């Protein structure tokens, strides 16, 4: 039982945190800009590598480098929106999906060009786990990742419910036509969507490096569970996306636990769990757990 918590639940929460932060952006962009952002995973990769450079140049701690990652990813996202998505805004949104598919590839190629294709780590070496009550062995990095994610989730909740910008964002996600008629500034809302979505994705990217290592393909590989998390939580519901991402992460880890003598599924099929959940959501409850928009 202790093994279940130490080796499955805690890593599951960590993985879930990474998916959750990525899924928030996907859910918000889908809710507000109305398209599935295929470059979101690779935006994450850019954030992770920006932090790598910051750590390499200044020797700052990876946690502090998150700030650098956020700034770089937000600038890249805003520039991408301006150059590649905005010109297609008047067309059916599926064209923007195609554009983002291409942008994903460009991001990855840029990362490979600048940083190469080797696996890289922020801080080499082994960290001693923290031990609670003589039974729970939790790696420091897991505490950092899950803790930061909880803080960010609370901050996001306050932002969406207490600030004017946050309320406008929710209004646009709920009903864009009504929001436009009410005279809300859609373009400003879109900018905020990118800044928050990219910032959280970059944070998640740094977390990947903190947890294991970073690689130029990492973002693309994380795209499926992030989509699944966003759908599970309900499109346009940022907090739903956090819950959805968490559930996917925990489910992926728990599925490999030997509940009945043998592990439920082979660990190599972990990423299939996200797909199965995604399909189940699309069949049973396409609006997601938190009653998101069904587009």
């Amino acid at each position, binding site marked *: 039982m202790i093994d279940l918590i130490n080796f499955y639940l805690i890593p599951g929460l960590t993985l879930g945190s990474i998916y959750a932060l990525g899924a928030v952006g996907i859910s918000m962009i889908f809710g507000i800009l109305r398209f599935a952002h295929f470059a979101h995973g690779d935006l994450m990769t850019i954030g992770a590598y920006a932090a790598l450079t910051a750590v390499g140049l200044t020797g700052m701690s990876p946690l502090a480098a998150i700030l650098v990652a956020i700034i770089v990813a937000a600038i890249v996202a805003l520039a991408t929106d301006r150059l590649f998505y905005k010109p297609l805004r008047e067309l059916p949104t599926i064209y923007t999906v195609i*554009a983002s598919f291409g*942008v994903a590839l460009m991001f990855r190629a840029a990362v490979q060009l600048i940083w190469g294709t080797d696996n890289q780590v922020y801080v080499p070496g082994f960290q001693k786990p923290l031990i609670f009550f003589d039974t729970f062995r939790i790696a420091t990095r897991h505490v950092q990742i899950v803790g930061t994610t909880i803080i960010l989730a609370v901050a996001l909740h306050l932002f969406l419910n207490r600030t004017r910008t946050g309320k406008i964002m929710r209004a646009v996600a709920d009903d864009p036509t009504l929001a436009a008629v009410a005279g809300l500034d859609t373009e400003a809302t879109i900018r905020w969507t990118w800044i928050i979505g990219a910032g959280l994705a970059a944070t998640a990217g740094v977390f990947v490096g903190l947890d294991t290592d970073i690689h130029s393909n990492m973002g693309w590989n994380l*795209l499926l569970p992030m989509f699944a998390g966003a759908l599970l939580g309900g499109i346009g519901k940022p907090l739903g996306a956090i819950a959805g991402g968490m559930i996917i992460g925990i489910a992926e880890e728990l599925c490999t636990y030997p509940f009945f003598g043998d592990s439920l599924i082979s660990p190599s*099929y972990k990423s*299939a769990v996200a797909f199965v959940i995604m399909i189940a959501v699309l069949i049973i409850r396409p609006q997601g757990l938190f009653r998101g928009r069904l587009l």
Partner: protein
Amino acid sequence: MEISGLLFYLVGFLTMGGIYAVLSLALNMQWGFGGLFNAGIAGFYAIGAYSAAIITAAPSDKHLGGFDLPIVVGLMVAGILSGIVGYAIARICVRLKADYLAMASIGIAEIIRLIITNEDWLTNGSLGISRIPRPLEGLATGRTAEVIFLAFVWIIVAVTYFVARRLRASPWGRVMRAIRDNEAAATAIGKDVQRFRTQTFVIGSVFMAMAGALSAHYFKFFSPDATEPLLVTFLVWVMLIAGGSGNNLGAVFGALIIWAIWSLTEILTGQLPPDWATRSSYIRMLLIGLFLQFVLQRYRAGLLPEKAPRLDIELTRTRDLN
């Protein structure tokens, strides 16, 4: 390069170009006719390649089969399996906005990749399947055999093109375009939108598997590396959009032109010193991505824009449909 070497290169180029033309035509059925976004082309391609490989390869204890059966049987199994997978995913997703199908199709491709790399008993895992035959292999060897295979590929391209053309000009094709351009209107006149969409997705999936089967026979060896999403899914999207979505001839031309650009730049960058060669391959990817953005923004209709097929009924004389 001597002239026969050049011709030989051209045969290889046209063979791969033909396989891409089948993929591009198949995507045209899904996207061009039906407005359905398939981001998992590589998955359907892999189903086709592995089905054909397992059915036709010589017996081996490293993977399922090979059953050493005729190539036609391999093609049929490939098409049927891929069609079933396409049907399942389409049934779930076509009632929703195209983005959902896009997300789910990424998932399909991912699952298929997991299966082919992990199920050693089925596919020999990452080591791949070898000794896959080519049609009429006994007849000739060397360069003649390459030409025979080229003919085989282009026969399949011709079949695919013919089917796509017939589909487009048929009443079925008109309904598809109506659904794509105005779903509400198509529903209002009583068309079962979901059924039509599912049909076009399944037909596209079947032909994607054909392309996969062709490449398995061409390479004679197939491993998971050949299903790299960049080389399959992304390149095919660029081909169709640049060639002209909705236009079958455009799909074929787009495939040949983009494949020409892609392979010529590969030759060019191959001349560079090794250190620069790897770097330039990333620059090449960056440029093809940029090229797609350029086409999307400026030449969305593509090289050969879609034209509504001529109607052979009275309607055309009284009213210009365009």
